[in-house]
């Protein structure tokens, strides 16, 4: 007597509510609860503090995808292609990265690969100015592949360490836009063998379950190598990346925590799990 075989119903309800309202999703929430269950000794099942601690550990475990640390020196220029749905925070994140890498002593070049949206190039130019780096841009409506091709060639010719390519926002359900992105990827490889060395999908942490479809479809189109999770300074928890990490083994490289140039942090899984359950 006094030995619980399963987690108490009320506590289970609290766990579920915390998980669902953090956008962790049905499938992953169930998986986490099962993992917590399996990891707990019988006598700990009815101790809320043990259960919550176990949940945090399992979240940490799923986020640890075993990706190698980011190595900006493994290619010169290291070409980073930034992709994602409309309004996720791509252009802003590129501005922050340009500043961060410049301060780390890297020579950075930006490519204004969004040739479609109103004032997209102008927006990137303001960020480039803030970071003190140049931008390669084309004419409005120009094929984004050719703009990025030119940028990579210039980066190589002029000894840049990093070339970051901005692309237009696009919804993954739009086949012709995903084809355009795949072409940008292919053409980058023609400008420089091995490019793009990194393809980062920018995910808005206010997104719900659609982020999973974004990760899958963008990866099918351009072999995504990492994630940037933006807008974590808001009230959304970004829990959907736990399922994405588990299923797709994609590392979160950075998080965006505001709209200023310094509002970027390297991803810290422990801090993320802590904030999620807060």
């Amino acid at each position, binding site marked *: 007597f006094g030995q619980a075989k399963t987690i108490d119903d009320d506590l289970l309800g609290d766990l579920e*509510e915390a998980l*669902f*309202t*953090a*956008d962790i*999703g*049905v499938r992953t929430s169930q998986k986490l609860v099962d993992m917590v269950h399996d990891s707990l000794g019988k006598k700990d099942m009815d101790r809320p503090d043990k259960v919550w601690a176990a949940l945090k550990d399992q979240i940490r475990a799923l986020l640890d995808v075993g990706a190698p640390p980011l190595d900006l020196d493994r290619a010169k220029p290291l070409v980073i292609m930034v992709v994602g*749905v*409309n*309004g*996720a*925070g791509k252009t802003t994140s590129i*501005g922050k990265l340009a500043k961060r890498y410049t301060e780390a002593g890297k020579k950075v070049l930006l490519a204004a690969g969004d040739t*479609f*949206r*109103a*004032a997209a190039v*102008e*927006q990137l*130019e*303001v*960020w480039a100015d803030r970071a003190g780096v140049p931008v390669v841009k084309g004419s409005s409506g120009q094929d984004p592949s050719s703009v990025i091709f030119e940028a990579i060639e210039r980066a190589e010719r002029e000894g840049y360490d990093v070339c970051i390519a901005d692309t237009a926002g696009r*919804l*993954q*359900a*739009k086949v012709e836009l995903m084809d355009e992105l795949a072409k940008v990827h292919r053409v980058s490889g023609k400008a420089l063998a091995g490019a793009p060395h990194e393809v980062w999908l920018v995910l*808005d942490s*206010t*997104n*719900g*379950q*659609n*982020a999973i*479809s974004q990760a899958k479809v963008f990866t099918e189109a351009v072999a995504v190598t990492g994630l940037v999770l933006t*807008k974590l*300074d*808001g*009230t*959304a*928890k970004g829990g*959907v990346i736990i399922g994405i990490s588990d299923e797709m083994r994609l590392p979160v490289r950075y998080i965006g925590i505001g*709209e200023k140039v310094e509002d970027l942090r390297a991803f810290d899984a422990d801090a993320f799990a802590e904030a999620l359950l807060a």
Partner: protein
Amino acid sequence: TISKGFRTVKHRFQGKRELTEDNITEALRDIRISLLEADVDFKVVRGFIGRVKEKALGEVVQISAGHGADRQEVKPGDHFIKICQDELEALMGPVDTGLNFSAGITTVMMIGLQGAGKTTTTGKLAQWLTDQGRRPMLVAADIYRPAAIQQLRVLGERLDVPVYHEEGKQPPEICKNALGYAKSRGRDVVLFDTAGRLAIDEQLMGELGEIKRLTKPDNVMLVVDAMIGQDAVRTAASFDERIGIDGFIMTKLDGDARGGAALSIKAVTGKPIKFLGMGETLDALEEFRPEGLASRIMG
């Protein structure tokens, strides 16, 4: 047209002669999962499931007590689905689209989180208004985002609609002065495009309050991204409490996001869904109709 979620439910009841507590519970489990995966708010789902269960069980009692004998003619699956659909429609609320037009100059204030689609939707509304024979004017009141003014100016040029801005002024003053300018130019609808902001940002919410105080807008529209998850209710409720919204516009529905937040926001704030953004071009705006959204959310 019946959605996939409802089809699974129908399947469950195939060959069953009646609604029972067991088959209702099973069906509701499927529906709950479907709604949560569609990003409907956790508590809104709980309320919905509770009400449907109560109604459906009430039917079981009725039928087994021999009342409503003629109801046994309706297949149990169809009957259960009808209960769900009625409940969904009740949540979506009565259709109340379009804008509140005033006798003089009609004002529309566009607000919402960063990247939701405010600037683009402001342009779309201007096109919609022009098509109706009105004379809109756009006000660039986002002084923070790089090239935000430029973005709105490009849209204005495409639509041949004037864009008002004043360098070096704060948004409340820009919006207030825009009204005088609109009057002098014979414009009859003024749309304020504001900067994206978090509902928890005290200073920026204060700025919105100030714009509202100075311009007394006829329409405060909350612009919401269809992909938004469980944060939808938190955000919408905060904006509504702090500023007061007249309606909301859901954008990016041309993608495959289920858009469950539309249900949640309507359920919690009681405010109507006015328009739907269906693409990046300025003609991609529709007035809200419940049928399409209900079946999309049900999956």
